């Protein structure tokens, strides 16, 4: 898109390759390719098979625009493009009303965020005269960007990020987005699109960390930490295999914003990459399970599947260990780095992150046990699957398990990108350094000194979460704690939809009523007023000369009186 309003606003279709955009482009295309391959198997037999592939490709195009754009408008072009693809794909099976509603909800909620993004662009244009990232960051570095303006830009970008990356209070669309085909959930709603907000905040890191008021990074870190904990508590009580992963994604994105707010940009990108590996793996694994279970998604009707789906089970277990934070799997390293920076910013943030880590290990262990271990519960549900008596889960075809194996490999070794042993082993940090310089937090000595202690505590927390879930779901020594309030996501989503469907809708109805009755009523009212006035006047036209003569003489008298009073005569 080349917008050029002469000297006054010039926006080029500018793309740029720098360490950050290359990093993003690499994992977007890499994971995108794997998921395309997977989708060949997963979507096999769907009547809209060929049409399906239109959208993931359009999505990859838009996502690359988003991460490669050298100015905010090109990013926004990609940003909306991925949103539109997300809409198409969530409502891909559009004959079901639930899918259609979920798609609409995703688009409209994202638009709330887009409003923030647009405000950020307007402020940037007013303050810097261009939408290019270079001058914006430079202005932030040099201190020439007024503090209030910088804060405004950073916070409005964060509003946009909250929409796209499903943070409180705008996360509500993501769990519903699971209505789309599972490869889509893995690609768009776990690995790539939802991390766009983190990318955007990293791209403009200097504005938030250097030029803004001190409360702005706090707000980002606070929302991130709160979302991480909030979503993790909900994941504990979900029964749908994909919903667990969806809330887990929201929670992990919360970690990334905790990192962004704490100034740990390298850690945020690091976690984004490792999360892309293991969460794509988990989603694709869940898709393989759903496929093998003949489209059953309720974990209460699964169990013991490792016997029937060995490869899926083995790779899923790798993903589980990675997200639970067990070393040496990828998730451990990235999560640990975020927690370290959070501790340095404030121990309170660290505590929230730590509790979330325990919950993460717990709910993921719960999921693995319910799906792959414990006892086979699907036999009693065989009828519901449409298979009469001889229902048997089956392993997925090669095109589906091959990506699982590759992603499992990445989830094991992904941590090698950034190992905290010495500066030399922090490859990602060296690679991204030129970009995040200045915005990146310098760790205090305390945090540096006790970082291994913190890592040890984190490992203990993960083990505690795992053992807790084993005790509850495998050994059944404790009754499961799955209160309704958690299963229903603290009733937040329901409150919103009740408001929208209730008072919100009524208010809209009121406006429409006012329009047709008051505003238009005034128009029609004046028309009928004129008509009845005409009706009255018509009565004066009697046709009798004596009446007219009376009128004329009355008029003469009145005029005479008027002139006399005015003293003209």
């Amino acid at each position, binding site marked *: 898109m080349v*917008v050029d*309003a002469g000297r*006054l*606003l010039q926006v080029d279709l500018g793309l740029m390759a720098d360490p950050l955009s290359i990093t993003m482009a690499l994992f977007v295309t890499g994971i995108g390719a794997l998921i395309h391959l997977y989708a060949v198997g997963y979507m096999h037999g769907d009547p809209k098979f060929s049409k399906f592939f239109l959208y993931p490709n359009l999505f990859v195009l838009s996502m690359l625009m988003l991460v490669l754009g050298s100015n905010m408008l090109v990013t926004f072009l990609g940003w909306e493009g991925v949103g539109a693809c997300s809409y198409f794909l969530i409502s891909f099976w559009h004959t079901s009303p639930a899918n*259609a509603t979920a798609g609409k909800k995703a688009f409209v909620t994202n*638009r709330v965020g887009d409003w923030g993004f*647009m405000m950020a662009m307007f402020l940037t244009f007013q*303050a810097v005269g261009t939408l290019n990232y270079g001058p914006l960051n430079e202005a932030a570095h040099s201190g020439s960007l007024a503090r209030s303006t910088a804060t405004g830009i950073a916070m409005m970008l964060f509003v946009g990020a909250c929409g796209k990356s499903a943070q409180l209070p705008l996360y509500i669309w993501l769990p519903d987005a699971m209505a789309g085909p599972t490869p889509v959930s893995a690609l768009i709603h776990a690995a790539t699109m939802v991390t766009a907000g983190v990318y955007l905040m990293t791209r403009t890191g200097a504005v938030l960390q250097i030029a803004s008021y001190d409360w702005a990074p706090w707000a980002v870190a606070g929302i991130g930490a709160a979302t991480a904990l909030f979503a993790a508590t909900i994941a504990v009580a979900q029964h749908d295999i994909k919903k667990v992963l969806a809330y887990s994604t929201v929670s992990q994105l919360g970690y990334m914003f905790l990192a962004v707010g704490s100034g740990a940009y390298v850690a945020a990108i690091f976690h984004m990459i490792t999360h892309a590996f293991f969460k794509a793996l988990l989603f694709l694994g869940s898709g393989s399970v759903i496929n093998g279970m003949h489209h059953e998604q309720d974990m209460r009707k699964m169990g013991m599947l490792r016997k029937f789906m060995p490869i899926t089970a083995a790779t899923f277990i790798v993903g589980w260990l990675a997200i639970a934070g067990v070393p040496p799997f990828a998730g451990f390293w990235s999560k640990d780095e975020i927690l370290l920076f959070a501790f340095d910013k404030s121990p309170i943030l660290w505590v929230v992150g730590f509790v979330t880590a325990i919950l993460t290990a717990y709910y993921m262990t719960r999921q693995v046990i319910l799906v792959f271990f414990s006892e086979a519960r699907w036999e009693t549900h065989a009828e519901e699957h449409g298979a009469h008596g001889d229902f048997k889960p089956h392993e997925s075809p090669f095109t589906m398990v091959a990506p699982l194996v590759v992603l499992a490999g990445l989830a094991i070794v992904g941590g090698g990108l950034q190992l905290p042993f010495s500066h030399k082993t922090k490859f990602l940090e060296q690679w991204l350094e030129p970009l995040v310089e200045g915005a990146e937090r310098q760790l205090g000595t305390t945090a540096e000194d006790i970082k291994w202690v913190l890592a040890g505590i984190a490992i203990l927390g993960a083990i505690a979460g795992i053992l807790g879930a084993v005790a509850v779901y495998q050994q059944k020594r404790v009754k499961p704690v799955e209160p309704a309030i958690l299963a229903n996501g603290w009733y937040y989503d329901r409150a919103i939809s009740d408001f929208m469907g209730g008072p919100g809708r009524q208010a809209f109805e009121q406006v429409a009523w006012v*329009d047709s009755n008051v505003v238009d009523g005034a128009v029609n009212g004046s028309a009928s007023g004129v008509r009845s006035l005409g009706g009255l006047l018509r009565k004066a036209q009697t046709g009798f000369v004596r009446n007219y003569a009376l009128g004329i003489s009355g008029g003469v008298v009145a005029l005479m009186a008027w002139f006399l009073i005015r003293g003209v005569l």
Partner: protein
Amino acid sequence: MPHTSSLQFPILTVLILVPAVGAAVVALLSNRRPEFVKLAAVGFSVVTGGMTLWMLRAFETGEGGYQFVSKHQWVPEWGIGWHLGLDGISLFLVVLTGILFPIAMLGADPHHDKKPYLAWMLLLEAGMLGAFVSLDLFLFFAFFELVLVPMYFLIGGWGYDQRVYAALKFFIYTMVGSALMLVGIITTAFLARQSLGYLTFDLLELQQASFATNTARWLFLAFALAFAVKVPVFPLHTWLPDAHTQAPTGGSVILAGVMLKLGTYGFLRFAFTLFPEAARYFRPLFLTLAVIGITYGAIAATMQKDLKRLVAYSSVAHLGFIVLGSFAFTTQAVTGGVLQMINHGVSTGALFLMVGMIYDRRHTRQIAELTGIQAVAPIFAAVFTLVMLSSIGVPGLNGFVGEFLVLIGSFLTARWWTVIAATGVIIAALYLLWAYQRVFHGEPDEANKSFRELSWSEGLVMLPLLGLIVFCGVYPKPMLDRIQPSVTVLMTHIEEKTGYVEPQPALFEGGEEHAVEADAHAEEGE
């Protein structure tokens, strides 16, 4: 003012005459060969469209003044002239008119009496083109009024159930506005004689005249009322949903696509040019009405039960953006507003055509009676989706570019109005996607199971519009290059007349530091 492209051949005069003659020819043709009548009518409008495209090619880019000027005395005693000219602001409106008329004639057949319908359409085209190229106030008024007549008969004669009510409402509402404008025009000319020394209705001469501040404000209001009804600006909009909904498809396409722009165009060309100080004075009022129109129109659209009425209300919201941009008084916003006039014409014209196709198939426009169409007519649904996304303002499609320029330009001078106006973008997604969900998604019921897929001929009619939607969204530069110089001329005129200085965003050049303080410019002129 004369320019190389203002050749001897009076192309603008011919441009008006071709459809006018066409109307007469079609009216006189024998009705025994109806297909021949349609061929002739479409032929005249295609020739007209071709001429507008030729002018687009011949138009001197980067030139802000009037081109293709043709100027003759008409009623010299009163200073009335046949003065026509085209600049960047009117160029694309003329081209849009040239493109939309053949599409409207081909894309939707009237349900009876084709011959008079087509004749009225051609007369309407002549009037519309005349209004966009007139540089004489009297001439403009004549064309401005002329378009009412064919539109009245089109709605009243070929419309739906409540057509008579809608046509009358449309006619009277617009007449009330333009009656005041006539008084305004005459008063302007006579008052200007005091400072000019002679009587003239020529815009280019009148714009040099000076008026007493208060007088100018009253005169501005007289013009503004006529234009505000036409746009329409809240709360003068209630004729629009009725007229749009009751008009035949072709009439709706023209009404929304071109006719509403007479209002927004009139503001820029006449009201702003003649009374810049007054326009600045009433700025807060119109900004507020624009923002109300954007949000209120969008909210009202959400709750409509009739698909066509929904599109009509969306026009109220979209036109609000144009008014916002015009009264923001920045080059970006005004340019964006002009662009938005074109983009709205393309997108909404396409939407009305498709709603018309739905009506032809199902004989209903009630959203509740339509469902699951995407399952039976995927191509139709795909085309509708593209048009819908353009109307929502998704980047990469045409609707976004104008909206974005309007908002980014308005933000410089009217920050808080813009903040609220931008929420209209959210509601736009809500009402269109919700309607789309109800009409296209879901399982088709018995009545919708046999919904006919988009035919080749329908597809061909839609094709140019779809091409414009994508092209203008991806590469608006050619249009902006032609619009912007004329907007700059207008802005310079306003600056000279009022002493207003257009705020510039801070410039940041290669790391050099400037005072980068956004709040300094905000809220200027309050």
